[in-house]
């Protein structure tokens, strides 16, 4: 565990991922290790499986569904393997990495989510990743509401040495987005990432503001935003389902990022989300450092939840 701000040790992508996820893994493994063994699952085993899924925030409905699959499919391979397969089947369609389509320049990514989910930090990390991949990145500080939100994004801008288009706190968020896209077009940027203020999906006025940002972007580029990234805290419970529905209804969510997976929260609600509305999961956040963003990998994710053997 590194404290925020300290330099990340690089033990290679896989090493670091499983490092960071090991807390998650241990917690779930505890539950599952007792359940190994082949043959038909008996009631007690299923009950334990149910408990494990529920405690990972998978939710009642999705848990019931997954267990149904497990019951039907588990044969010689064993309950554990059947569960792994069921989880994988559910989440694999969500493994669609973000691809910056060169046909759209600047490629506009609008980042949305509830308060404190990790939007701004994810943008800081994403800017670093995209820049490393050779893209010319710009940021738009369209969180004009929260105190010092603009300054927070500016710090990430200077860490990455990428320009941040901003106005003062209290300015019109859509106007900032508009200026930023105009600037990005003028400077021939490859990618523009728009930070937005955290908002609860129940606040219709603020959801309208988000739509307005989108409309304003579309005035300059009818195809923008090209990605609407919904950021979710891995510790979130069942409310994530409502968040997805409402943000989707407002601005059409095209991708998810799951943050704070470096704790013991498992982010299991994405299984419930995948069952209802399979949206690509683009990234996972595994820390507060600039390199703590990973491309979502279904096998790794399930493996992190449910280690194969040991």
């Amino acid at each position, binding site marked *: *565990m590194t*404290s*925020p*701000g300290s330099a990340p040790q690089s033990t290679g992508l896989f090493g670091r991922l499983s490092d960071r996820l090991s*807390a998650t893994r241990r*917690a779930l493994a505890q539950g599952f290790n007792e359940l190994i063994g082949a043959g038909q699952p008996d009631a007690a085993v299923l009950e334990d499986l149910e*408990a494990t899924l*529920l*405690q*990972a*925030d998978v*939710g*009642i409905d999705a848990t019931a569904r997954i267990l149904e699959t497990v019951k039907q499919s588990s044969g010689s391979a064993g309950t554990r393997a059947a569960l792994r397969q069921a989880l994988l089947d559910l989440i694999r369609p969500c493994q669609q990495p973000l691809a910056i389509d060169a046909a759209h320049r600047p490629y506009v990514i609008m980042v949305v989510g*509830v*308060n*404190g*989910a*990790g939007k701004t930090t994810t943008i*800081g990390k994403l800017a670093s990743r995209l820049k490393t991949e050779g893209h010319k990145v710009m940021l738009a500080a369209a969180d004009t*509401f*929260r*105190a*010092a*939100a603009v*300054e*927070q994004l*500016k*710090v*990430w801008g200077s860490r990455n040495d990428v320009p941040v288009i901003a106005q003062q*706190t209290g300015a019109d968020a859509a106007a900032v987005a508009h200026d930023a896209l105009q600037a990005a077009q003028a400077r021939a940027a490859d990618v523009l990432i728009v930070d937005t203020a955290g908002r*609860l*999906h*129940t*606040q219709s006025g603020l959801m309208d503001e988000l739509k307005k940002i989108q409309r304003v972007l579309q005035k300059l580029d009818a195809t923008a935003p090209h990605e609407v990234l919904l950021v979710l*805290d891995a*510790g*979130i*419970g*069942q*409310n*994530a*389902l*409502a968040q997805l*529905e409402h943000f989707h209804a407002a601005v059409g969510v095209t991708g998810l990022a799951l943050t*704070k997976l*470096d*704790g*013991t*929260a*498992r982010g299991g*609600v994405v299984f419930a989300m995948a069952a209802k509305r399979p949206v690509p999961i683009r990234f996972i956040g595994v820390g*507060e450092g600039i390199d703590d963003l990973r491309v979502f990998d279904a096998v790794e994710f399930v493996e992190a939840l449910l280690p194969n053997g040991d």
Partner: protein
Amino acid sequence: MFENLTGRLQTTLKRLRGEARLTEDNIAEALREVRMALLEADVALPVVKTFIDDVRSKAVGQDVLTSLTPGQAVIKVVYDALVALMGEHNERLHLAVRPPAVVLMAGLQGSGKTTSTAKLARYLIEREKKSVMLVSGDVYRPAAIEQLQRLASQVGAQFFPSQPDQKPADIARAALEQARVSASDVLIVDTAGRLHVDAPMMEEIRALQSILNPVETLFVVDSMTGQDAVNTAKVFNEALPLTGVILTKTDGDARGGAALSVRQVTGKPIKFLGVGEKTDALEPFHPERLASRILGMGDVLSLVEQAQRTVDQDKAQQLARKISKGSGFDLEDFRDQLLQMEKMGGIASLMDKMPGLPKTPDAEQLQQGEKQMNRLVAIINSMTPAERRKPDIIRGSRKRRIAAGSGTQVQDVNRLLKQFTEMQTMMKRFGKGGMQKMLRGLKGRLPGMPF
């Protein structure tokens, strides 16, 4: 989003009807539904288990009151147990020490610590006339110190500056010293968000606690948190002598089951709810409201029960008679009705309990609504008994007198009279619909009320 527990329970409960005593058997199914409701509300599984066992043992053997169906009796036991678990009373901050009284904020990243720091400061400055100093020990998150500085100046608190290259422990020592020198009543120390599994960071906040010796150490929890709440709460509670909990972002539609998990794991009272992003969006905690919300059952029973407890029975019956006759509903009754709504915990709490009504709208709108309600009561209070019985006689000069007497405008009086006429018509239409229909009928009829 979620299927209503009320809806779900209906079938189960029908089967229970007519049984005189609660038994393991006849409540098993109802408890299964309650378990599901709790899980849907994100109450952590181990907490759900303990809770259900507790409720079962309380319920079995109870006689079913004639006024309730056995199903309702189970729900009553569940509801009462929930309220009891979350603390019957609203616990306040205990700041009665030799100043400066230090408050330490702790919690995960993004839970709402900094905002809550500012809200608390505002609350103490405005309501308790304290002088408050704020300091940020968040040297990690970009612009975190600046965020607090802005908020401090918004709420009129003193701000003790710190720098990202300082050590939080040094900041804490210096701030404490300065708070002494400047004779501040309260020093609130904001800290960086940290994961409970981050050992160095947990050590850091332990050190802060021992330097500051705070009288209140508050754990700030996001009400949208899922099952992991038990794990985080447990570790924070072991690391720090927590004195209370602030539950944030309750202005959304999360059911807030994490509150129950945290409460059970730490045993510490929830002292405040965050109900919005602005610095005045802080409310004292009401266990009843949260209980209904967690159960998500549009809890008619508790409404009825609260009505029984608080509403003057005679008046209620009188009113019921008048309404069922479809006539004679006068302004006096209207006022009683408004006052009763208030007694029952205001519009917000009523709305939380009514099935089929939209979720509680945002706090600001509600406050508007409640203010409006108070104004209506004031207007009626300024009328003579004759005017209340026969609103038709209220003409020009009477209107002016009433407006002057209640500190309102003639338009306000006109509006009230118009609403009242509409209400009367509605009452007639409903016949003996009772309170529930009536309240639903009120929907949209009172200005400023968003529902």
